């Protein structure tokens, strides 16, 4: 049997297909765009599967169009991360427009979770806009930030306010790399306080697209003093978890 998991997020859609042995058979990714269901259909049509489970913000729309079961991204990320790193008890997921810290029971079930507020402060979208303001490509943003010797203090977490703060730092002639580092520092501070609210020890599995940012992963383990484990394809953990849950319900 083939089990698919689709994660329809605010910024991107991921799809993973696994077999009965939980082995990944294939995966796809696309930008969500303005018509998530059309995009989702396109991706779904490219693969064959027996069962599908949806997660992410678009899950309820998908449920209506495809008559498929759904699961929240919290449970999906928890299951995906726990399967990739058996025994892990804490997950940090920073996606396009939200971030969450999840504590797990030993059996992988969700024990407690925290999510960011309604705005996109401290998420992938925040980093993307800030990279643009500073003239960096998003793929290089983390590397550039790591090159700075120190981070400049950025106090605003709101995307709109932080952008004007960054603009005024640029106007003062400050180094772009140091500004970039400061932005990463502030996102990390926020993530750490969220993690500390749910769990105080043990390794952290870092999932979501932002886990591909080298500065984020480096700073996280440095400032938290806990081991941070990064999946090979962190942005697929939610869809992988959904596929596993599709397998589980049989």
């Amino acid at each position, binding site marked *: 049997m083939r089990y698919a998991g689709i994660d329809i997020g605010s910024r991107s859609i991921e799809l993973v297909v696994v077999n009965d042995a939980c082995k990944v058979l294939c995966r796809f990714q696309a930008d969500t765009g303005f018509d998530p269901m059309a995009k989702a259909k396109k991706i779904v049509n490219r693969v064959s599967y027996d069962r599908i489970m949806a997660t992410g*913000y678009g899950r*309820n729309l998908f449920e209506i169009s495809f008559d498929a079961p759904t*699961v*929240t*991204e*919290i*449970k999906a990320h928890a299951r995906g991360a726990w399967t990739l790193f058996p025994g892990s008890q804490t997950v940090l997921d920073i996606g396009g427009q*939200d971030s969450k810290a999840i504590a797990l029971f030993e059996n992988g*079930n*969700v*024990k*407690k*979770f925290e*999510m960011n*507020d*309604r705005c996109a402060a401290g998420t992938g979208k925040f980093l993307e806009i800030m990279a643009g303001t500073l003239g960096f490509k998003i793929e290089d943003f983390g590397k550039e930030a790591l090159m700075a010797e120190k981070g400049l203090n950025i106090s605003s977490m709101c995307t709109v306010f932080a952008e004007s703060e960054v603009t005024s730092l640029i106007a003062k002639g400050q180094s772009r790399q140091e500004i970039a580092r400061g932005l990463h520092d502030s996102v990390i501070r926020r993530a750490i306080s969220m993690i500390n609210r749910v769990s105080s020890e043990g390794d952290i599995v870092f999932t979501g697209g932002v886990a591909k940012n080298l500065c984020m992963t480096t700073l996280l383990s440095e400032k938290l003093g806990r081991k941070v484990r990064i999946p090979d394809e962190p942005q697929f953990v939610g869809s992988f978890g959904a596929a596993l849950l599709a397998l589980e319900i049989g």
Partner: protein
Amino acid sequence: MKYDIMNKLQQIMEQNLIDIEQAKDRGQSAIGFYCLYSPMELAVAADAIPLPLCGTSNEPIATAEEILPRNLCPLIKSSFGFAVKDTCPFFRFSDIIIGDTTCDGKKKMFELLSRYKPTHVLQLPQSQDTAMALSLWRSELERFKKIVETQTGVAINNDRLRAAIRLMNLERGARKALMDMNKAKPAPLSGSQLLEILFKVGFLADKEKGISLMEEVVAEAKNGSFLSEDVVAGSRKRILLTGVPVGLGSDKVVKIVEQSGADVVAFENCSGYKQAFFVDEKTNPLDALAEQYLATPCSVMSPNNGRFDLLKEMIQEFSVDGVIDLTWQACHTYNVEAFRIEEFVQKTFGMPILHLETDYAESDTEQLRVRIEAYLEML
């Protein structure tokens, strides 16, 4: 039958406005209340109409924000906005307004509210178990009594007060009986039905009408009239909602819980079970009122041990599967207390809790839905 009763309630609500208008034309006074702490008995004892005032709609908030800071609790902004826009009929009917020094936001809002309507603010103590607190509250009720007497021209004696207590006890008893229905499994009333009935009945000037309607609902609900057919008995998780008050217009969390396949079976808040108390009918009436009303377990009190006791009792009696603790944005007292509530529920019942902070706007519906669905997945 369900629809008959809900239609009847709607008709009674419409008739209520006409009744109040006519009563006022005959010279009867109306007194507006914002908080559960001030005893409506004092109004009833002077033949005045006690009116709870609106504050559960998002609509007047934008107007309120022209004067009040945005970063303030939506309940306060909504209440104030209704007054400024003059869109709450009950505010319009009220000759005087009674407020209490509950939270900081409210007491400062009342200062501004007095520009629109004579507003009397009772000095509510911040603790409940000292002799000084009780004696202060007792003397504030004495002052409140004189305010009502001046307004109505009626001298409030002990017999009048006792009769008022009896009537209000009957009303509270009917509300309690209605809320207690949901101790049954499955809950015979959905959370939103219960909320709608409790909310609307509160506005009725004729207390007897409200009591008999609630009794009718109880009788009908016992026969299962309110149960929806598509619900498989026992399959839905039973949720207790604690924290800030909710009413029509500020019930988005209740709706999302229901849409996510669970039931809100009980409300541990001042629009719900915090009203399920009885005032002693035998002792000196003003003493009894002071003591019972001061005991209301709101987070403005420090310490607020009564809330923990009530929560424990309700979690057991309503056999709940989960607890959602709701805080309106910028409500510091409930927001801070949330940490201890979570700890308490976790320790006592080994049950996870979901703490939500939001306002009346619909903009975060999907974010709330994720949290609520994820919480239900955990249970």
